[in-house]
């Protein structure tokens, strides 16, 4: 079977961690308070990993039926900051998909595997 490759990209909005915090109720201060984030060893507020994962699932499902996504497992490799541009690359071999998300300003931010049926 031919492997199917797919690429998409997304620019993380300046206020996305705030919007995602509101939608998800994840108000951990490292996502919404610059000083707090810096005091805890981060370069600034960072995007919720769950948001990067949600964008990864969006890349995989596209406009298809969401029930086709059976599982997803990701590792968060590096923080994503507001205004970063992310590039999503996935390769499907039948139902098994591997996915990597790269930051245009640096290296990989997420790698993972998913099953789509």
């Amino acid at each position, binding site marked *: 079977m031919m492997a199917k490759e797919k690429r998409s990209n997304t620019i993380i909005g300046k206020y996305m961690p705030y919007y995602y915090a509101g939608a998800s109720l994840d108000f951990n201060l490292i996502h919404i308070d610059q000083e*707090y984030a810096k005091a805890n060893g981060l370069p600034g507020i960072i995007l919720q990993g769950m948001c990067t994962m949600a964008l990864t699932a969006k890349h995989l499902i596209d406009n298809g*039926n969401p029930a086709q996504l059976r599982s*997803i497992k990701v590792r968060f490799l590096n923080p994503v900051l507001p205004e970063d541009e992310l590039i999503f690359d996935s390769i499907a071999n039948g139902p098994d998909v591997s996915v990597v998300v790269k930051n245009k300003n640096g290296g990989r931010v997420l790698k993972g595997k998913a099953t789509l049926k």
Partner: protein
Amino acid sequence: MLGDNIIGRKYESDYEVSYEKVKEYVRVLDDQNPHYTDREFVKSLDGGHPYAPPTFAAIYCQPAMNHLYFDPEFSKLVPRLVHGEQEYHFHEPVRAGDKIHTIAVIDNNYTKTNQAGKVHRIFEIKTTSSNQDGQTVCTGLYTLVIRGE
């Protein structure tokens, strides 16, 4: 070690999935998949209510996870907490109107030394979510990293 005594601790929550909340969530992600937002489209497809995106699991699990984050034994670790890994297995699809019960259990706690010699503490949290009919909708594994000083 701090936190050892909370292995096996269990946190539960109930969450009712609303169409409006799903629309709010997908708007943040700029996800225009009609399965989430177009009632008529989904009705014509299978007669049911709009779907929630699979990763909406993060939303309906969050109240149970918040019980963990605000647990006095755990909350002091939260300032140095980052999300290391996340795994979800999806079973019955979740749709607007579903009532989801989630149980989160602290399953494992260990340390890991990184290349710079910093000792990170890892917590693994298992979640099991089921709907109003008792069907499992999602099982999850949250790998939470407490960064070493």
